């Protein structure tokens, strides 16, 4: 068995290969190494308080699909693919719930005050959170991957399954919309 300290020196691909063979410690290193990146990926998606759940779901999918990882794929690309799918599933659930909720009368609850996120504004002073949230999902994801994660456009194209040219045009449109939004405020 390889000592934990030695595992932490390994690159993602080597750890993933060990995790594929059910090495729990190798998987633990991957979790600890990438949990923060995923947490911020989901937090910037507009999730108010469930982002840690979504991180957990992503890693569980990584465990379930560990056999599908091939060394030729960059590990973070594979991880973001899974995270994106988790986010898409989450959006579908939300949409279904919203449709259901439309049929229900609004019901104020005496003991409940609508939650104000404790970290409201943490997305950059006062206006970056709403500005990001104002973007269509397809544009926001390009900003997330290209600006915050600083991924090469080719990798973004792989994750989003779109051509590199589309990544470029979406990035331009996203930044232009953000700029306009912030100038209006």
């Amino acid at each position: 068995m390889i000592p934990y300290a030695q595992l932490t020196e390994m690159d993602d691909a080597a750890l993933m290969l060990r995790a594929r063979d059910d090495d729990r410690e190798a998987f633990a290193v991957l979790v600890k190494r990438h949990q923060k990146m995923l947490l911020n990926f989901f937090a910037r998606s507009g999730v108010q308080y469930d982002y840690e759940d979504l991180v957990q779901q992503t890693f569980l999918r990584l465990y379930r699909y560990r056999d599908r990882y091939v060394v030729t794929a960059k590990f973070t690309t594979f991880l973001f693919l899974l995270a994106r799918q988790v986010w898409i599933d989450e959006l579908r659930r939300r949409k279904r719930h919203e449709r259901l909720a439309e049929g229900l009368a609004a019901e104020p609850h005496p003991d409940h005050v609508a939650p104000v996120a404790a970290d409201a504004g943490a997305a950059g002073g006062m206006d970056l959170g709403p500005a990001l949230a104002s973007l269509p999902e397809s544009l926001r994801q390009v900003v997330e991957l290209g600006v915050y994660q600083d991924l090469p456009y080719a990798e973004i194209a792989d994750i989003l399954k779109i051509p590199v040219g589309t990544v470029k045009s979406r990035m331009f449109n996203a930044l232009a919309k953000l700029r306009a939004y912030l100038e209006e405020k």
Partner: protein
Amino acid sequence: MKLTAHLNELDASDAAAFRKLAERLRSVPDREPSADLADRILAAVDAERGRSRRRTPAPWWGVAAAALLVAALSLFSVFRQGRTCGASAEDGLAWLAAAQEPDGTWSPAKYGGSEAYRPALTALSALALARGTEERYAPHLKRACAALASLQTADGAFGGQSRERLYNHALTTFALATLYSGQPALKPVLARAIAFSRAQQTAEGGWDYEPRSEGNAALTAWQVRALACAGRNGFGEAAVPLRKGLRWLRGSTREDGSVAYHRESFSRSDSLTALAAYTLITAGDAFPGLPALGRHVAGTLSAAPASEEVADCYRDYVKALAFESAGSGAQAAAVRQQMVARQKAGRRDQWQSVGGRLYTTALTQLAAR
């Protein structure tokens, strides 16, 4: 190509503005994960790994033989025990009290059920006695709680080797959380039970017997009820799994208001629709929209008597709870009447092989009050 190279291709004014914007976006400090997030993730992975390893399907002939044996034993027991129990509430409670074993448990095998569910049937019988107003059942309850605590294994679960393990765990945790008041000795027992529940929760927030499943509505609703009750008794560690469990239940409610066993199951289940409605209304009362959703779900149920040959005390119990909590007292009363009438008539119950007469009596008592 990365963003920097892309911006270099743009005209100077756009490029400068976008660079400034990107810097501003990146200047926002990242959020830090909770200190225990990695541990929670790894616990969920361990639970998944454990479920995968435990799943060793029995050969079909083994399952068939076991089912036949259980059915034969059930029929034998029904005839041996007599087909009805006392019709009044007090008769039912007295019968349950008398059926308690000297060690404090209740033995379903003696009444046509399966011994594998002894913890769950002990939990339900104790809950039924606790709903009575009679002080004379207090010693029975104390013995039942001690017996349930003694069934706990080192990992925090309450007995069983196979599928019944999680069912026993959910119902026993719910019973102990309900009966916790005034029994400080139960505190470490409940804390271990909650830790086990957390470890077994899927990343999606549900619970299930099967590996690679997001959860099933029955087990998830019982776990949520247990965690909500524990939370009300001051077990703060129940808050996170409770919220996730409620979120799973909310997400399992279909657009027509129905709930099925699995999210992908084709047909609705009246039992699970009622159980989900009741759970959303009562356990979700601190969350916006959940009680309203629960009432909407309850509104899709009918109290009309079913014409089925086989009675279903579990379905009737949760329907009575759902109607009552949704404010439809008349419908709840109608369901209770049918329940008592079926029991008086000695109708064979769908869940006979699980808990036998203990099950039908305990659930009838729990629905009645």
